């Protein structure tokens, strides 16, 4: 892709990132941070790409390590965020089926 296209995408994505979260209430700071954290676990895609063309054992070892780390980041991140948010949901309902799991 041309350099200017990449730069344009980069600049526009910055604006989207800024705008999209700029009104978040402090209650959601942690889940949002955790969710964003999980999203950057998508580096897994990069790890798979490099693993796919790894030739030496060193390259393969490093890229397998990268895949493991990235998967932990991604999968763990989404699960933990969901758990945090689960706590909020009961507010509207009676919520009698909750409050398990962390004692």
């Amino acid at each position, binding site marked *: 892709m041309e350099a200017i296209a990449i730069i344009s995408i980069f600049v526009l994505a910055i604006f989207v990132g*800024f705008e999209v979260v700029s009104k978040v209430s402090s209650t959601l700071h942690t889940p949002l941070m955790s969710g964003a954290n999980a999203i950057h676990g998508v580096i897994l895609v990069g790890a798979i790409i490099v693993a796919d063309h790894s030739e030496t054992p060193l390259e393969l070892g490093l890229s397998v390590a990268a895949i493991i780390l990235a998967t932990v980041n991604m999968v763990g991140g989404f699960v933990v965020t969901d758990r945090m948010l689960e706590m909020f949901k009961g507010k509207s309902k009676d919520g009698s089926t909750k409050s398990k799991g962390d004692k």
Partner: protein
Amino acid sequence: MSPFLYDLIGLLAGVCFILSLKGLSHPRTARRGNLLGALGAGIATILVFFRSENEGRNLLWIIGAIALGVVIGVPAARKVQMTAMPQLVALFNGVGGGAAALVAIVEYMKLGENASLAVVIATVFTVIVGCVSFSGSIITFLKLQELMTTAPVVFPGGRFVIAATLAGVLGVSGWVVAALGTTPLLVLALLSLIFGVLFVLPVGGADVPIVISLLNAFTGLTVAASGYVLQATLLIIAGTLVGASGTILTRLMAEAMGRSLFGTLFGAFTAKPQIGSAAAENRPVKSGTPDDVAILLNYARRVVIVPGFGLAVAQAQHTVRELADLLSAKGIDVAYGIHPVAGRMPGHMNVLLAEANVPYEQLSEMEEVNPTFPQTDVALIIGANDVVNPAAKTTPGCPIYGMPILDVAQAGNVIFLKRSMRPGFAGIENELLFDAKTTLLFGDAKASLTKVVSALKNL
């Protein structure tokens, strides 16, 4: 798959990420937002196996590694205590940064002499920032898990060591760009890891969440840079999104805690060895029994409950709710005063109290509740300390100076439920504990509350 279709589906995953962040910013859509993010990540992961440039090598290794990651990540996330969530997030962030650095290193080995200048620069950036994010996150993890002191760690001449390391990082970066070898890159990685440690050590406990958020934004940027190196548009979009939203979030968090972002970041360069903290004194305090506390509460017209980290530790959220219901039934006006950084992550207290089905209307934010303290008869502080510490207003130079606090000193009576005279997360003495209108009830918050509840029932 045709490259165009591949990219198009990748863009779809990017749109999922945007909608995910958007959803996560509103209470009602937050959960759906997170699921959308997971959907995007799932699409992206499956998609990469259909990339037309794939060589199809090492497939078993790849799938095995993913499986291993899932086996490690999911149970960790499922089983962790609510109190330990912040450090888990820090850890996840760190491994993400580490993964980005590893990807950059492998791709660099692969490209060798063929790497263009822009690619080399992007690689250097990814390695530095990824490694800083990795080792820095490990330190925040250790601090939050209390495997090491939460107070700022500052050693004499520390700032020179840091400056020297930074200079080293920059110097080696130049070496990498000039010499294009694997060795200088590994040296760079090592120095960056050290720099990450040094960077986070002097950060005071109260600022740790800000640093996690910042490292999160950093990791996002490394993902974007990797996307450039690997020519994967999706990584550019996703990484930039996280970088930008993480930066804003860091600023919002710093604002909520009344901290200057600059001060936090360059704490490393400005921190002086600690003054007057944690000096265990031996002054008299007024401690009470559960009956004393029950009587104080019984004759109050308005009670404000201030929950803190200790409430989370003691898992006392259900007991506190029981107490509040009892007081309400007696016609006493009960509110919870929630400090934005009570506990160990922003929103921690809201999460805990929501879990205990505390009615939403009773939760008041700091700005709402502060003006009502003069009309409040009892402020009941359960396992909180820093968030009510007047030193934040009165003692310039102390680690929490400038943070807005809950003004409990304005209330008629102040009751602390804690286990000992030990200070809170920031490691500083709380003068309010020695105040004439303060009553201390020592013991685990849950046990103490249970006793107070039964005393109250017998009145």
